[in-house]
């Protein structure tokens, strides 16, 4: 009975995190439309199970690094929604004091190394963080996320080669959401098996149902264990889907509305976990409503905090160009 209640709590926590990301991103989209968020803003809606599942099996001190579609990764690893939203709105209270924005946010204390705006650049950097783990002889693993579009970048294979050659503790997580901006995978990739992209470098890989948070957690756990035991890198291809456009200005001409709708209805990661919670743990409608209210309050607080925070002092223009 105690075990069942622990499991229930764990699952409900996963649900909490996924729902937080979903609601946070919806709010970000809204604030963008109102002109409070500028520039590029890449929403994570639909892909929540990937980062939440992986975060659930991370050990203290493990690092993660990703591309510019990064809000979900930050919320999953425990970064403060208020400070993330403040950064999105360019305020002094944001993680980068308003100097990084949506695509460039970091938290060294949470092991989050960004937030990178150049497609594929985070892949060798992630391998380098893993290199440092090996150099320092600690047992940490670096989770290095990139999309299936970035997976065609040359530097990804340079990183694969070195990661395998030097047995670096890095899990390469390919978030395959099927579209690189507006280009579907079949139009840009000569092969579709992203999990097999490391075979030439002796890197094992596995395709995972990235719409199911428990599947993600299970395979991520095995991959992390592989790395932690000194066996070198591992590739996880997360088969997932992005509901929103690539960025906020997206023509939505490259796929049909029906395609998106079908996945939302049949494969939504939050609905899937919700059904499981009802079936297996008998969570009541009332408990779900309470959870909805709790998360709504967190997101509203984050938005209020951001919008009530001052812009950076103009002197901040000149600070942090160099470290002391």
């Amino acid at each position, binding site marked *: 009975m105690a075990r069942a209640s622990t499991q229930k709590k764990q699952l409900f926590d996963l649900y909490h995190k996924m729902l937080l990301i979903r609601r946070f991103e919806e709010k970000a989209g809204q604030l963008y439309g109102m002109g409070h968020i500028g520039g590029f803003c890449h929403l994570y809606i639909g892909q929540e199970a990937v980062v939440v599942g992986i975060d659930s099996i991370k050990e203290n001190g493990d690092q993660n690094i990703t591309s510019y579609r990064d809000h979900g990764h930050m919320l999953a690893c425990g970064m403060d929604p208020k400070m993330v939203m403040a950064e999105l709105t360019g305020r002094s209270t944001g993680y980068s004091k308003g*100097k990084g924005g949506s695509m460039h946010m*970091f938290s060294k204390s949470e092991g989050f190394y960004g937030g990178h705006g150049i497609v594929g650049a985070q892949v060798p950097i992630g*391998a*380098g963080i893993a290199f440092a783990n090996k150099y320092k002889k600690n047992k940490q693993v670096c989770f290095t996320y990139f999309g299936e579009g970035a997976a065609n970048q040359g530097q990804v294979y*340079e990183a694969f080669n070195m990661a395998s*050659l030097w047995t670096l503790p890095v899990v390469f997580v390919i978030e395959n959401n099927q579209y690189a901006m507006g280009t579907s995978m079949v139009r840009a990739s000569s092969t579709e098996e992203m999990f097999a992209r490391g075979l030439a470098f002796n890197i094992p890989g596995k395709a995972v149902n990235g719409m199911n948070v428990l599947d993600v957690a299970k395979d991520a756990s095995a991959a992390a264990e592989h790395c932690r035991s000194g066996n070198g890198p591992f590739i996880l291809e997360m088969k997932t889907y992005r509901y929103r456009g690539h960025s906020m200005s997206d023509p939505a001409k490259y796929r049909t509305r029906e395609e998106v709708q079908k996945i939302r209805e049949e494969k939504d990661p939050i609905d899937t976990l919700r059904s499981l919670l009802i079936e297996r743990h008998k969570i009541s409608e009332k408990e779900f409503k309470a959870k909805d209210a709790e998360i709504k309050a967190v997101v509203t607080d984050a938005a209020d905090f951001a919008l009530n925070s001052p812009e950076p002092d103009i002197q901040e223009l000149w600070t942090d160009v160099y*470290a002391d």
Partner: protein
Amino acid sequence: MKTEILMPSLSPTMEEGSLAKWYVSPGDNVKPGDIIADIETDKALMEYESIEEGTIVELIVKEGTENIKVNSLIAIIETEAIEENRNENTFATKKNELLDANKNEEVLKLAEDTNGINATVNEEKTIDQEANKNKSMSELTVREAINSAIAEEMRRDEDVFLMGEEVGEYQGAYKVSQGLLEEFGSDRVIDTPITEHGFTGLAIGAAFTGIRPIVEFMTFNFAMQALDQIINSAAKTNYMSGGQINCPIVFRGPNGAAARVAAQHSQDFASLYASIPGLKVVQPFSAEDAKGLLKAAIRENNPVIFLENEILYGKSFQANCSSDLVIPIGKAKTVSTGDDVTIISYGIGMMHTLEADKKLKEMGINAEIIDLRTIRPIDFDTIIESVKKTNRCITVEESFPVCSIGSYVGSQIMINAFDYLDAPVLNCTGKDVPMPYAENLEKAALITPDEIVFSVKQVLYKD
């Protein structure tokens, strides 16, 4: 007929070398492709193959001789006249077959001999290095200066490591990292694949966690492949993270023209990197500056572009060799004082400037010479102070003229010392063309001491 065997040139910049070992003796028969000697330069040890077929008559240069000029006579070989070749060839072939049968024994013997020689050479080198340590002022090449700066910092701080192509087992493409693998092991002296973009990004990721990579680019021409990581990742992350994640890393290697390696391998990238906020850029001339500035660069908490020069590697300077020597980044050095004109230069430009200065002195012109040493941030205090005294200034650098360091220095002098100027600031730079291959064209593309003298005369309004 007797044919001369000459000292070969085995690299673009080689002018002389040592005869490390003879593999042949008078009376030996050799065929094309046979290794006859080991030739050693300050860069590398290379096997020298015969291109002739014949009998060695005389070895002119003894084993172990140093500083043998390229193209000087080292041995004489008796080669057969073409018409007589056929019979002799048959004889030679048979003799070779016989030799082959006995080869194993001879190879073993040769290996023993070689081991003996190597042991002696190594011992001597170690003694030399120890002797150097005990003197505070001594002759030091730029190569030795860089090598010792890296070694000293790696001894001081376990978080410092070196990575790049051929830095380990090969001992450095330009022998800069000689001996480091042996002292620090392969965990800290890391040979990389030939993938600049990837290993640069990897090193930057490692630096984000707080360890201190020194990344050697075989030349900065190859760093072009890694430019995105250097500029977008290394230079900007401290700012983009609001000061949370800094990048303590040194990117170093030869920069600028070597000799006869043409357009893709000959350019000075100082102004390109100097335009990027978040980077510091250093380009030393002397051995002491190379050592002291590299040590400062390794201790720096920001990315430093450390631009070396292949031609300067072998150049000797009187230098303070103390291991405490750390020269702060951002300070220029007034190399000589004078009242007539200020000459501002850096890197190999200083070599041409000092050469030109001899001629200027003969003409009675006293130049104040400033070696910038650091290109970003530039020490404008020293520059402006000097220009206020001399009222005239020229800049000297090897890079292209458009958006050069000199053009920026000139604009700053105009803004900050306009009323003190008696003549426009002139820029001596390389020519605005890709580097040509032909010897005469390459020479014409680079700056020369005569051009520096000409510019000085112009700002002094002398004929």
